């Protein structure tokens, strides 16, 4: 094995998901553009991005539901294309508003799934279904949309997956159900050092549960780090300048807002040195912590992900964790 191979193996041991320049085209549309992502084992990784950013495509590539146009990746140490069956045996997957076979009862669905996996933990399934009042004898077609998602989630963890892929799976759940899911699924998995890769639009939830985040915008992975690291490095800076000339902002500053007496901008590589250098100009510099939602909006806006325009010149550089 080459040196590179040894390094790769070592890397994959620590990461549940590793992709190398994963690219996927749908005709002319570039859905994934050289995505090199790493999802640490035991992490709860929130993959965020605006609609059409390529999140679902990324997850479908991991499941080998679609083949990447180029690039490669490993999931739990298995090549995601060549060993896709082995990959799927060790992971669970729930998609947004997961369609299920409506003629089945929940019990039949669970039995069907149990027959597809070498091991099955019916208690784990019950742990999801019972608190939200879903009877195993209920037919799928009789369940509400949220209940169907919960049923899909319940059967997705029956085989004790080492990696759970939740593709907008929390969408449509009421707050109580969402809380139950967080408590009975994600917290349990996290406690057992299992990995969760979750995508969604509810950033408040993501901020609450994720410890790692990645921003996927227009098929490109613009940011990937721990949540703490993200928050530590992406800051809003306000400079007051009551009478003086406009302050000079860093070249890579995002969302620069200039007013008559103050200027605000976001930086993605915040350091104390930056504040000190700005303060050295004799102005009052204020550092503002940003919520995950603010960061998402800033990054997405800067990269053109929220507008029809392309990425701005100040689009953030990708930061590796």
């Amino acid at each position, binding site marked *: 094995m080459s040196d590179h191979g040894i390094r790769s193996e070592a890397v994959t041991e620590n990461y549940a998901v590793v992709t190398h320049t994963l690219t996927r085209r749908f005709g002319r549309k570039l859905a994934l553009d050289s995505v090199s992502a790493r999802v640490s084992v035991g992490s709860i990784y929130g993959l965020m991005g605006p609609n059409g950013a390529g999140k679902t495509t990324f997850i479908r590539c991991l499941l080998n539901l679609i083949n990447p146009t180029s690039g490669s990746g490993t999931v739990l140490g298995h090549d995601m294309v060549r060993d896709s*069956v*082995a990959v799927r*045996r060790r992971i669970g997957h729930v998609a947004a508003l997961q*369609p299920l076979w*409506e*003629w089945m009862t929940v019990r039949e669905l669970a039995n069907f*799934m149990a027959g*597809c*996996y070498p091991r099955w933990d019916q208690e784990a399934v019950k742990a999801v279904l019972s608190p939200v009042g879903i009877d195993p004898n209920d037919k799928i077609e009789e369940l509400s949309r949220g209940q169907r998602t919960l049923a899909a989630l319940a059967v997705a963890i029956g085989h004790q997956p080492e990696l759970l892929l939740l593709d907008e799976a929390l969408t449509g759940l009421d707050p109580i159900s969402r809380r139950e899911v967080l408590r009975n699924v994600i917290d349990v998995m996290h406690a057992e050092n299992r990995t969760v890769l979750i995508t969604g639009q509810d950033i408040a939830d993501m901020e609450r549960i994720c410890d790692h985040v990645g921003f996927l915008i227009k098929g490109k992975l613009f940011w990937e780090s721990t949540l703490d690291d993200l928050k530590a490095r992406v800051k809003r800076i306000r400079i007051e300048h009551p009478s003086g000339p406009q302050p000079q902002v860093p070249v890579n500053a995002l969302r620069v807002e200039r007013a008559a007496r103050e200027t605000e901008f976001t930086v993605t590589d915040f350091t104390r040195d930056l504040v000190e250098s700005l303060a050295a100009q004799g102005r009052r510099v204020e550092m503002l912590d940003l919520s995950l939602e603010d960061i998402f909006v800033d990054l997405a806006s800067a990269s053109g992900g929220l507008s029809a325009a392309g990425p701005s010149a100040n689009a953030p550089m990708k930061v590796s964790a």
Partner: protein
Amino acid sequence: MRSVFAKEFRQNHLLVWVGFLLSAAIAVLYWAWTRNYVKTIQDERDLNAFCGIIVLLTTGVVVLVSTAGLFSIETTRGTLPFLLGLPVSRARIWLAKGLAGLAIAISSALLLIVPTSLVLPQIVKEIHFLLYLPDIVTGVLFLFSVTLFCSTVFQRVISVLLVTVIMLAVVLIGEALFLNSVAPILGYDDLFDFTLLSLFLVPAFLLASLFTFSRGELLMTRRKWGLAVFSLLVGILVVGFALYGVRSWMYRYQRSGVKALEAISLHGPFARSAVGGEPVLSLAVAGSPAPFQRDTDHGWVRGGGPYRSRHLVVIDLKTGREALVLPLRKNPGEREADASPDGRFYAQISQGVFGERRLSIWDLRSRRLVHGGMPKRLYGGEIYGLDWSPKGDFLALNVHYRRPARANGRGVMVDGESIYVMRPNGDVVKQIPLWEATPEREPDVYSYFVRWTWAPDGISLYTMRLDGHILRHRVSDGEAQKVWQPPVPDVSLPKGYFWWFNQLIVSPDGRWLVIRGVARTRPQTESSKNLSVTLVISSDGSRAVLISRDIATDLVWSGDRLFLTLFSRSSLSVHRWQPGEDRAVPVATLPLNPAIQKIASLEDGSLLIWGQKQAYLVDQRGKLAPLADPRMRNLPHDYWFLGLDSEGRVIAKNLRGTEIAAIDIKTGQLTKLYP
């Protein structure tokens, strides 16, 4: 995989019951429509035809609907990603779904036996025949494979159904074109029967379906389209080449084992008709004894004994090349084959594995199948007695049919027989009825056995009942004209004796008919005596001459003279009759020892007698002499006479049956023709 299979079966099990109800409805409706016919069903083939329709219709519908949704419905309902997210390979999912679809088809087919047997209890006894029906089994398999392929490609069930129907139509049309272009070149009509062609396409469609599902996208993308079309084409090519390779190998293998040749027919020059044609010789390769034997007037019938012939080869005698090679089946099905007198066409009546009769006609110039190749159930029964008109522009054959009819307010089954006169392309020109029988009304025994032969003009033919009634039928309008009927002149039959005439030959100029017959008692007893007669009758029936009371073993016209070989206890004599004479006169007497195989008339009016030990020539004056060339004294030891070609050469095979040769009787020169 088991889970997926069980899920699919459960998902579609309702269709089985729908199929059950559907089959019940069809069975009842069909029974109501044809109840008189059903009451008369005795023959298992009729039973199969009745049940086949129900099975094919119902199973076809169930298979179409259930298979169409196997994959496409998962796409429509969005469950496909969920299914593919399971730790089961796509190939296994495809297999599980495919098996489930097949299980549904089989279940529905088995279940629909119930309503069918309610209206037709005999089916329970004869149930195994359903499985033998190639049309149904292969038809359902073919439908299944096409639908499965479409289901993996298209996302909507309605699209799958639509495209499947279109593809079936395309395949049917393509098959018709294919049959007429490729099959005759490959020389195996049966392989390209619809059923077998369908079977050939089944693995291609299944492979394409598997490949498209395994490698294709979830959605209907251009890439998936390309993949589907590409994999289908590759599948067809792979399976086609594999089959072709296997067939070629088998062909070579069989050819390498050629042990004996048997002549089936020698035409063109042999017919010595006014029409100059391509001389062709058909042979059964590795056959011993011959698969076909001449049956007096009814063309060729299968020979007795063990049947080992593997190929039927039509040879162009001018070039020695094979004009057509038709592999023969091991079953005793191939029963008749004959080339047209002009050597242009070659016709064969064969019997398929499942007992169906078929007529195939090839154009030997283009090597194209111009007619047939498919079961000809439209005839409804036996077909036999193949015979070309002298000019080769018509083909006539006997058709024994059964048809339902109403008599006295109830359904009866009518048996009948006709002569069908058709063009070489298979178009029926005229149907000449011979007899029809119902349980209440049966014709007399003589009517069942009718000999017939073409008139030399090629536009009319003569029929002769066993009791000697002769009619002339005009092909153009079917008009029948009475020619002759007993009594036989100069013979008064003893009481209790009946005439049985069994051979009818027309002179080359069409002026005379020769009939041979015996008078016997019915039933035959040890004390019965057979009285043999050979009569020459003028074609207008105005004159009948009893030319011999001995058993004539061979008859041949040479111009307006008729030669007969007659056996006596110690010798074999050749007699001659010509117009104006009132009996045949002896022209030569040979010891019995030469064991004469054949007499044949030569173009100069002389007669060739081919014996096992010596060949003789009877000149126009009736003088008998051994053939002049010394080599001819030995050649007959080694060669079996088959016929004469257009140059007057004897076409013969060696006694071991391993080669065919042409022998110039004047010089004794021997030219090997085949192989």
